[in-house]
């Protein structure tokens, strides 16, 4: 091997060593230091629990309002104290809650309340319907009628 080739070989080794050391230093310094703010993670669940368990001014809880809504025979029970049926009452109430909370707090959300045949959906961003970019799911089961409420807050 000629002298010039030795020199080039030496330079390549030096550069390679420097690159390896550099990568090592960066790799040890760039760590996932993100603080997992547990306080944020339960908001969707809290929202469903708090809203569904709260009493409306119709002597039902909101859970019972939705339970009535999904039952044709009981949907008109809300008309005894209000102008519309239970579905209208539940939809408007839930929309008011979402407007005052997630919408005001600049969260994108998708809430689906369904018993498998009928669906009530609330969203402020249609892109939030897809499975990607979703986080913090909240679930609420209304056992009497097997109604499931599923709230996703999107990133």
């Amino acid at each position, binding site marked *: 091997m000629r002298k010039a080739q030795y020199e080039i070989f030496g*330079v390549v080794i030096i*550069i390679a060593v*420097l690159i390896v050391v550099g990568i090592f*230093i960066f790799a040890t310094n760039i760590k996932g230091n993100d603080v997992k703010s547990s306080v944020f993670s339960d908001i969707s669940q809290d929202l469903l629990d*708090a809203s569904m368990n709260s*009493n409306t001014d119709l002597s039902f809880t909101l859970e019972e309002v939705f339970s009535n809504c999904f039952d044709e025979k009981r949907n008109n029970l809300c008309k005894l104290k209000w102008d519309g049926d239970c579905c209208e009452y539940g939809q408007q109430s*839930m929309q*008011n809650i979402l407007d005052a909370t997630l919408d005001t707090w600049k969260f994108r959300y998708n809430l689906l309340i369904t018993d498998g045949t009928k669906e009530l959906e609330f969203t402020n961003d249609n892109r939030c319907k897809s499975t990607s970019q979703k986080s913090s799911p909240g679930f609420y089961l209304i056992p009497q009628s097997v109604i499931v409420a599923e709230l996703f807050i999107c990133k």
Partner: protein
Amino acid sequence: MKKGQVELLENSFVVIMIYFIAFIMIGGFLANEFFGQKKMLADLQEKEWVRKVNLIYSMQEFRCNDNSIQLYDCFDKDKIEAFIDLSTSDDAFFAYYREMMGEMVVKVSVFDYAPDVDDYDTSMDYVVYEIGNPKSETYREIKFPIILRDRAKGTNHFAILKIGAYQ
């Protein structure tokens, strides 16, 4: 160009290259250290803020209990009212919580979501604790949906718990 000059030129090029790479690496390392420290400080402040928020959120003094079991995301209206009364009337009580909670803001307001509500009833808006200056740049708050239980009436209200803390 003579052979010696060519070799000198080659060697100079190699030395410049090594210095150049070393310069970039040292610069990158220093920048990384600088931003890493800033990030670490921000993370510590974030953790401290989260700790304060969690402290309030889990305080037995405000929560609903059912046969000694603490109910999830439920706050007791009577306990909150009692806390406010005591903290205004009892100096020792206030001093105890002042020391424990420090500079914070805790507010609860009931939200009436009924479709035909025009005027919101503010009789159930509570300033539970307020020490410090909310206009401070380090002030940061978070809001949680909660149940506010009225044990006397046996009703649950949808409410917003606001916790503000200073980082």
